[in-house]
């Protein structure tokens, strides 16, 4: 049948393409759904064009993946430093202490601590989770899963990746600058972030930090435009929107969230840059007195509103937290269904719930500002919308469980991590309900319950989904399989230690311990919490160390892993129709999609799966 595909509608289609190439534009005539034009390519590419400045979505995706993982290591190390300080404040770090902090008595200074968690949060969110989810897997999977040869705009895609480099540069240099790094938290609330005197440490660092954010924004924006266009305009014949795998849906929705939320953050951070550099007064209220010095007498404009920044920031950053989970939900859905050999339960509700999560996600940002002095009546409305957003997530959870019910689970490394995602997301999400209720949030706002909440979703949730996705799609990426035994060892340790680290943070929070404190034990109310913090820290170190099994497995498998065929998991979706790894233009035969993505255990055929592209 493959030959048949080749001798398909050859002539006129390719003629179209040629004309397109010469014309410098594909004109409207080609808009008819489901047309195909074959382009015959004969050019060989040099090493640079092929692996470094490549426009191939697969290469770019893998570039994103390794960049993200390296940053994961950096952010993880910072987390370890945080944990050290919280368990044994003002004590010298073994070995590294004298190297890192020679002039602060070999211990973490309080100022450096603020920089630590600021950069930890920034790196983990903007350089790890989002790039890994949308950058790495978005790039690698979308064209493959919709049956396209590449992204709609390969060059733009490449620029999108290279925009991450100045971003990373700004982020890291801001940490290296004299005086240290940005020290206003990843939320960068003014005036602390806008008035140099307020945080003497971060002279230019804060400005570079803002620049980094702007570049990341530009990168995500190009990515998002590309993803949406590719998904809408380049689907294989027969692949209707309602036949897309949940992964593609998740990435699609995440891209839309970025398109509509990110520009606002960009505008906001530009205004903050102006506040710092040319001393405009967007976020500087009148008659402040910072370190005995008023910004106005220092020749800066005033009359702005600090609260405004919070609105603008959270208008992006709340959708951003869903950007960090919606694709993960997609991965989990696909992995669960594939390795449980059972159709995803309630496909349509799953799609609609993702949509409503995204929609509601735009009207709940105020739940980060309940205590900020915002009008309490407004707080009430945000409370209602926030609690309602639990509902779609609820639908998803129960659909995942129903998918597993009566299934045939194969406990591969990928599956283990996907199951962990569900288990952990539940915990993280449920604690969200607490904070959504305004009166309770009065007490728990800015306590460790918040820290527990988002680490449960973002680390214990999204990161497990990412691990799962790596195990699941690795064969497609490198044509080899990862080592299952190592994978399982890695999973067990990671699961145990993750819970040891983050579960007890709930207790810290309930005891009233607030976040972002270099030394909680300065207060009587918190003095007795040190042993608990030490337990958490030790678990965190183990968690970090345990990742060695992953790193070893990853690199070993890239070179010496067992070769994988086209479809090692006997999966239904389109990416498995391509060779592993897919070559030039991804697919070597013409695709026609006949059904939904989850036909596992179907009675129609006697194997237990029926691929989307197989015609009966």
């Amino acid at each position: 049948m493959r030959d048949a595909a080749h001798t398909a509608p050859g002539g006129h289609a390719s003629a179209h393409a040629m004309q397109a190439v010469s014309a410098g534009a594909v004109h409207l005539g080609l808009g008819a759904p489901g047309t195909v034009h074959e382009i015959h390519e004969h050019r060989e590419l040099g090493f640079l064009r092929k692996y470094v400045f490549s426009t191939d979505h697969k290469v770019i995706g893998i570039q994103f993946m390794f960049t993200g993982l390296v940053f994961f290591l950096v952010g993880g190390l910072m987390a370890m430093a945080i944990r050290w300080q919280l368990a044994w404040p003002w004590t010298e770090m073994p070995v590294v202490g004298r190297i890192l902090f020679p002039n602060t008595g070999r211990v973490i200074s309080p100022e450096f601590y603020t920089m630590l968690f600021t950069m930890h949060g920034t790196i983990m969110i903007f350089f790890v989770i989002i790039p890994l989810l949308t950058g790495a897997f978005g790039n690698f999977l979308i064209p493959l899963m919709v049956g396209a040869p590449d992204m709609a705009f390969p060059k733009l895609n490449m620029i999108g990746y290279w925009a991450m480099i100045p971003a990373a540069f700004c982020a890291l240099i801001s940490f290296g600058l004299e005086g240290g790094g940005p020290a206003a938290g990843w939320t960068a609330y003014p005036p602390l972030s806008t008035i140099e005197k307020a945080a003497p440490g971060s002279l230019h660092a804060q400005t570079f930090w803002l620049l980094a954010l702007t570049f990341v924004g530009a990168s995500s924006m190009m990515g998002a435009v590309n993803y949406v266009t590719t998904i809408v305009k380049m689907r294989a014949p027969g692949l209707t929107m309602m036949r897309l795998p949940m992964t593609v849906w998740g990435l699609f929705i995440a891209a839309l969230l970025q398109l509509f939320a990110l520009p606002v953050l960009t505008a906001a951070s530009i205004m903050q840059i102006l506040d710092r550099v040319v001393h405009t007064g967007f976020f500087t209220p009148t008659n402040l007195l910072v370190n005995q010095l008023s910004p106005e007498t220092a020749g800066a404009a005033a009359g702005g509103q600090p609260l405004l920044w919070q609105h603008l920031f959270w208008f992006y950053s709340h959708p951003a937290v869903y950007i960090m989970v919606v694709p993960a939900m997609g991965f989990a859905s696909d992995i669960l269904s594939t390795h449980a050999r059972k159709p995803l339960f309630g496909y349509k509700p799953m799609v609609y719930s993702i949509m409503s999560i995204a929609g509601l996600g735009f009207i709940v940002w105020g739940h980060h500002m309940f205590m900020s002095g915002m009008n309490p009546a407004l707080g009430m409305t945000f409370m209602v919308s926030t609690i309602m957003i639990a509902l779609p997530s609820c639908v998803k959870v129960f659909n995942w469980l129903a998918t597993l019910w009566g299934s045939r689970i194969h406990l591969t490394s990928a599956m283990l991590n996907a199951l962990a995602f569900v288990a952990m997301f539940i915990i993280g999400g449920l604690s969200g309900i607490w904070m959504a209720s305004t009166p309770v949030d009065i007490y728990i706002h800015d306590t460790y319950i918040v820290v527990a909440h988002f680490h449960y979703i973002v680390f214990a949730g999204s990161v497990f989904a990412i691990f799962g996705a790596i195990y699941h799609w690795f064969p497609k990426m490198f044509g080899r399989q990862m080592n299952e035994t190592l994978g399982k060892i890695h999973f067990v340790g990671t699961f145990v230690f993750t819970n040891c680290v983050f579960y007890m943070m709930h207790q810290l929070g309930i005891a009233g311990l607030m976040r972002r404190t270099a030394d909680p034990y300065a207060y009587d109310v918190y003095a007795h919490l040190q042993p608990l913090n030490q337990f958490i820290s030790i678990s965190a170190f183990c968690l970090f160390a345990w990742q060695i099994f992953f790193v070893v497995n990853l690199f070993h498998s890239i070179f010496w892993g067992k070769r994988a065929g086209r479809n090692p998991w006997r999966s239904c979706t389109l990416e498995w129709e391509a060779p592993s790894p897919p070559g030039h233009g991804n697919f070597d035969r013409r695709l026609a999609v006949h059904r939904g993505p989850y036909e596992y255990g179907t009675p129609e055929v006697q194997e237990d799966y029926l691929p989307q592209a197989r015609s009966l």
Partner: protein
Amino acid sequence: MTMSQATAIPAHDVGSPGHAHDAPAHHPTVYDYDSGPPVDRAKFAIWLFLATEVMFFTGLIGTYLVLRIGTVSWPNPASRLAVGVTAGNTFLLITSSWTMVRALHAIQRGDQAGLVRWLGGTILGGASFVSVQVFEYLELIHHGSVPSIDIFWSTFYTMTGFHGLHVIVGVIWLIAVWISAVRGKFTAKNYLRVELAGLYWHFVDLVWVLLFTVVYLM
């Protein structure tokens, strides 16, 4: 621009990662399907891009309005800005939008000379708009009205400045299109890049009308 080129050659220079052991034959065929609404990809993407631009200016203008409503005594713009001059400038920009429409009509009729003429007019309009604005800035700064004076000037320069940047980008884009037009690259059948640049240009003008109203007139 990158966009339109990229679409033109959907599968251009696609490298393959790693050792493609069971990779397809030496002269692989690239299957590039076309689905969804019958709109060209580049046009679709431009609309998405414009959506992000809308959100960007929503952020800026929203900030402006909040600050303005929150400030007890906001100075009357007329007392600080040469509204008359800018009104003329606004008219100029709107005309450039009109000439852009004419340019598109021209090429749709296959009239390449007309395209070149009307595009040139549009570019002139945009360029002179920018120069007038630069002149206005210089005047103001000369009189010591810099962004760090007070919140009025902070917002004023940010709003108009960012719009100005967009106009400059637009002009550069139009010039690029104009050059291809001079080279006779466009025909009655193929004028997508003219259309794309036009969309962006109209958007920029629209934003200005809004800005002019809230910053200068209100």
